[in-house]
């Protein structure tokens, strides 16, 4: 009886040890330490893309700044040309007015023929 009990205990213990070992092996504790190459590749790709994005952003910023600079210069150029055109227009108006004054000075001759001794003379200048 005693031998039978001992044998039984021994079998139960062996079964328990077997099951525990099985569970431990099935859990694959060593698997977590290994890195997945696909994930690694994905991570690397992500890093590369982020770096590329930063580079592209810098290029875009630089080009935008250059564009704004050129735009301001162009706007100043346009304003200057407009001012010159306005000045030229004003000058043309003045010249037309002068021309009109020269030709319309015919209106009021404050001159008459007199019979007096002259104070001075006019001659070919």
């Amino acid at each position, binding site marked *: 009886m005693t031998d039978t009990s001992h044998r039984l205990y021994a079998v139960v213990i062996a079964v328990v040890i077997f099951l525990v070992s099985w569970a431990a092996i099935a859990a694959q504790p060593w698997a977590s330490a290994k890195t997945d190459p696909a994930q690694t590749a994905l991570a690397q790709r992500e890093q590369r893309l982020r770096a590329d994005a930063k580079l592209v952003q810098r290029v875009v910023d630089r080009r935008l700044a250059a564009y704004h600079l050129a735009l301001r210069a162009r706007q100043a150029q346009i304003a200057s040309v407009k001012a010159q055109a306005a000045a030229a227009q004003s000058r043309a108006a003045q010249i037309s007015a002068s021309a009109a004054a020269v030709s319309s000075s015919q209106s009021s001759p404050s001159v008459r023929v007199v019979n007096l001794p002259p104070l001075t003379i*006019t001659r*070919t200048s």
Partner: protein
Amino acid sequence: MLKRTFTAMGTEVELLLDAGPGARPEQALDRAEAEFERLEQVLSRFRDDSELSALNREGRLETASPDLVRVVELALAGRESTGGRFDPTVHDAVVAAGYDRSFEQLGPEGESGAAAGACVDSTQTACGGGFRIDGSAIELEAGTHLDLGGIGKGYAVDRVADLLSQYGPCLVNAGGDLAVRGGSWPVGVTDELTLELTRGGMATSGRDRRRWRRDGEERHHLIDPATGRPAAGAPLRVTVVAESAAAAEVAAKAAFLGADVALPHVFVTADGETILAGGLA
């Protein structure tokens, strides 16, 4: 009546100021004389260091003086209003005709280093060249040179008359180009004809003075821009009355070259006949 005479702009200048003797009127006459000198330094083509000479040399002045800008404006306006009969771009033609130095320095035979010919020959620039004013900048078309002799004296006379008029009625006469401010001034036009001028200006253009002989040919300083040569077959002289001496100068040259002028004017023909026109009687 105060009177002062002096030489400026290649001619005799006469200032008459209707004011009693005193320090202020004398100072005014001093200022008037200085003003003539200042304007000659701006407008003379005979002074190498004048502003006009610089313009003719460089072809462009970025910051011309207000006086030069104004005279060039008036010249441009005069060219437009006379349809080109008055033209300040006759410079090269005048020089080619032998008038390449002030008249006192010009010998009776007009000996000069300038090539004989006119501004329309193949070696010269045609008259009527372009010039433009942009603010205080003046630019000449390539090959164009300005001679402001046909308007500069009138402008100076007007300026000095304005200056003197602050001291009393006055008359300023620069070799026949004259302006009056206030008062009434009898001015002899011919031996038999006197005109009384109460305001404005008067000028005479003709071929009876400022003439010389060159290569056996008689020449004078009034260039016809259409031919680039001293005008031929024109009257002996024309006197015009206008609102200013500068306007009278322009109109006198145009009338001399055959333009219709509605201003009061006097023609003296080659045979000495005097014809009153433009409302004069």
